[in-house]
């Protein structure tokens, strides 16, 4: 089976659906972060596919995919940091303190 635009976008759509299901269904931090990574992969692949078959050589899709991948990395890093952080004893006493 050769990779046609329809096949590529279908794979991306299935990947996105899997990631979305995981994000809605999972209740543990690891599962949620993994689901986020899967949806990010789908979005990145979708933009790359569009650039390959519809981009006309302008490279806009590749640039967008780079930015989306960077964003996903920031989101995953933030989620991992929140999942692992242990509050200090001083922070534990400040109920309404922000930051």
């Amino acid at each position, binding site marked *: 089976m050769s990779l046609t*635009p329809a096949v590529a*976008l279908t794979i*991306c*759509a299935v990947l*996105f659906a899997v*990631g*979305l299901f995981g*994000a*809605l269904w999972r*209740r*543990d*931090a690891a599962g*949620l*972060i993994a*689901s*986020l990574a899967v*949806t*990010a992969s*789908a*979005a*990145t692949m*979708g*933009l790359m*596919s*569009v650039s390959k*078959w*519809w*981009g*006309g050589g*302008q490279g*806009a*899709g590749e*640039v*967008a995919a780079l*930015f*989306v991948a960077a*964003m*996903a990395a*920031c*989101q*995953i890093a*933030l*989620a991992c940091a*929140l*999942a692992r*952080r242990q*509050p200090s004893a001083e*922070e*534990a*006493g*400040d*109920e*309404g*303190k*922000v*930051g």
Partner: protein
Amino acid sequence: MPAIPLLAPETVLLAAGLAALLFELWMPDRHREAALVGACSALAAGLLGVLAGRGTVSLGGSVLAVDMAAQLARASVCAITALFCLWASGASGRTAVSGRAVGLTLASAAPALLAVAARDWLTLVVALEASSLPLLLLLEPPAADHASRTRLVRLVALSGVATMSIAFGVALLLASGPASGVLPAGPLSIAGSSAGGPVGWLGAAMVLAGLLAKLGTAPFDAAARPAFVEAPSSAVGLVSSLPRIAAAVGLARAAEALAPGIEGSGAILYAIGAASLAWGLAAALTERDLRGLAARSGALNAGILLFALGLAGPSGLRAAVFFAVACAAPLLGLMLVASQEGPVLDVVRGLWHRRPVAAVALAVFALSLVGIPPTAGFLGRLYILAGAWKAGATWVAVAGIAASLASAVPFGRFLRASFSSEDAARRAPEVSTPASVAALAVLAAVTVLLGLAAGPLQAVLGLRLP
């Protein structure tokens, strides 16, 4: 006088945010000074934005255009940021705001300004995410256990999935329609997008769903609520205001571009709006925590916003932007009062007797969120619902009015409690400082003045009562 660059406000905010973070590193005890510097910087950024006027900038493939609606939204973002920083400079004790929080707020406001002016998908998506991500960090409860951390991680993950939904939706839109290929409206231009065929419709639906999730529409508010009720109230206020203004403008631009190509788009937007109103109202009726009410108000306000987008055309876009601003200011104000006094119903009881300014401010904010005149919330609803009535969508106007009146139940509960004479057991309130009182007073005054500004809004924005 030399021309002020269009991106001067963003530059000022980013520089101020960096300065606040450095304050935190070198002088962690000087968080009030950091907040004051932040307030002055945000005010300066707002003034620069007004003086820079309207225009278009093309920067490395990114297209930014500031029109009248974008100018209003940008000024509002700067004003809200400045007032939050002013309040933070007076906050102390258990409600203290660190220099890190001020820095993150300023760092979030800068991309919000970009998102509001964005005319290409990539800038919109990246700026929207950059404006919400730093603020999600502030939602971290100080004494969090594993379960509450997981709830916050869930909110971050779902916010990220919403962004990816927008990105993937844009890919499908590009696959379905021809690229315009004409600069400055390049292949990622929002205005040049069209939803052709089933692939395009799916793409448009994914973009719409992602933007609605950023706005806190139903059912996405259900994911936000568990994290909100455990977070500091002032952080909830920020998350409920700044990124939502940016998301509302982004949604308006996307709808303006995509709706004409989809048959029955007006009816679809009305239906989603009505569903969001019904869901948000049903969930809000039993709320006894102001933070939970902030989460549900996302669904309620998004419903009215969708009615504005269903009107279509430039007037619908302007009404939607004004309504987003009219919701953001009182919501932030309400959360700042909750931060000082306590977010739970029992703690707010008797507020009028111990702090009358905060009680009056709470009343003004609550009345605006319900849509009672003469507040900004009332005028915002009037533009939209009167427009729907005139356009023949009578049921939309009736639904909007009914939902607004019904939303008086949960907000009225807090109003009644704050003016009641019962002196329930509560925490000892923090001492009010002039800065925090001034911030609340200005927010309340702006909420009322915007509600009385029909004439100036007509002259400046072209908003007319039909």
